[in-house]
């Protein structure tokens, strides 16, 4: 995450973009532009790798600008799998909600669908394997759990995550200048809301 921040601030000519994931950072670059701007001794890939390694080394003592406070995200806990998931862990639905809202999670990466944020880790007491047979359609805004990850479906999509609730907030809106509600690295705190509050806030 820190490497991504450094590369965005100070990158090489020909740099296009990065894709952060759990344990990796992919760097996309325009080979022709890199070649036109730097003396390439072996391959362009080697140049980019060396540049990235130097950026990594420069990270010692780097302090991230990413110090946003946690984002509060309202969730109405009414998911189709909430009761089943609670039973599986010998908990009540209220306890599952308390545990899910009780721990601040981090956005590890965004992928799968536009705006789908993989967040974690959820408390071990509610970590649950994906459904054996995925649903053909999951409603947008659905909040789910898969293993120790939690996430929100930004669009209607097939999906196998255990659904525990629904957020009224549009987490991906192509009409907005910044379409995605989250960025990788963000901290998120879920806040339980009632059906009435959900209806008042509903952006879908």
């Amino acid at each position, binding site marked *: 995450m820190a490497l991504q921040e450094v590369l965005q601030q100070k990158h090489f000519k020909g740099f296009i973009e990065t894709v952060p994931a759990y344990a990796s950072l992919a760097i996309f670059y325009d080979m022709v532009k890199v070649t036109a701007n730097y003396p390439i001794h072996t391959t362009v890939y080697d140049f980019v790798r060396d540049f990235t390694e130097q950026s990594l080394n420069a990270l010692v003592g780097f302090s991230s600008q990413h110090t946003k406070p946690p984002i509060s995200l309202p969730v109405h806990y009414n998911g189709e799998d909430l009761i089943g998931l609670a039973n599986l862990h010998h908990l009540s639905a209220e306890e599952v909600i308390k545990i899910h809202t009780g721990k601040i999670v981090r956005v590890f990466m965004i992928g799968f669908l*536009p705006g789908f944020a993989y967040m974690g880790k959820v408390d071990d007491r509610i970590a649950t394997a994906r459904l054996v047979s995925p649903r053909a359609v999951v409603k947008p805004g659905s909040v789910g759990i898969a293993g120790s990850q939690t996430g929100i479906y930004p669009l209607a999509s097939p999906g196998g995550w255990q659904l525990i609730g629904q957020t009224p907030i549009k987490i991906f809106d192509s009409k907005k200048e910044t379409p995605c509600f989250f960025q990788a690295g963000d901290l998120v705190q879920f806040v339980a809301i009632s059906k009435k509050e959900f209806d008042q806030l509903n952006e879908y």
Partner: protein
Amino acid sequence: MSIKIIRAGILATVQDSGRTGFRSIGVGSAGAMDLFAMKASNYLCGNDGNEAVIEINFPAPEILFEQDAIVSITGADFSANINDNPVLPWRTLLVKKGSVLKFKRPVSGARAYLAVSGGWQSGKWLGSYSTHLKLSVGGHSGRALQKDDTISFPAANNFFGNKILPAFIPGAELEKVYQPANNIRCLPAPEYAMLTESNKRKLEQLQFVISHQSDRMGYRLKNEPLMPEQPFELLSSAVDMGTIQLLPDGTTIILMADHQTTGGYPRVATVIKTDLPKLAQASPGQALNFTMICLAEAETCYTNMQRSLEEIKQACHLNLKMILSLD
């Protein structure tokens, strides 16, 4: 100044060279499947490489030109006809107002590109005209073209009075890009090392047949199963067009232009960018052979292709200078 779709095709979408800078929020590049043909079609109309074009699958739409236009058709050969007269692909075409463009039958390739001088005017989203089918944004209302859609383009100069030299792409250039059609060169991808030695050999020896479960998102391939050294659990990570993923049943998939930005299946190889146009023009049923090459070679191939494209651009623009006042 516009065209009108008088009969819809199966999937005709507005595309450019794709969207960059938004993969980190899960928005992939989309864009033309065959970037060589897409750029060439633009150059043949005197455009820069990145104007919006129409990517056409067969059955193709029938198109009425409501104004004079300078166009070109590249990529797949679907036996294009204007007013029932066959026209040549890969060259500048002058189309008169009232003409109808039809594509009669698929001769070769899978995707044709129709460019117009000045570019098709369509919706830009996050810096690109490419249609994002899943989000229904970009291009023409974020969807495939339908009957009665009209698409505008800038007025062409009064070119019919002028003597012009239509530009064309020499067959030798096309040969370099598209032949041998079944031989796809690859680089080892991050999880290549997870394959057993015998499976690494198989990757280059076996035939991989493109199945009917193939679209702009990816091509599912039928192959004798490959297996990793050990059962695997992978954390999701970035993928790209050309990434070959190994599925749990041992078959494979090649990700194409509308792929997701991340994936959790092992990435065993990556098709080199230079060979993506071949893949874009391949159809279900076609068998592919993979050859692993080294990074330096892949970079040389790409540099050469970009150089060819630059030469094509210069040559086309020189021919069209008189009518397009490109200076």
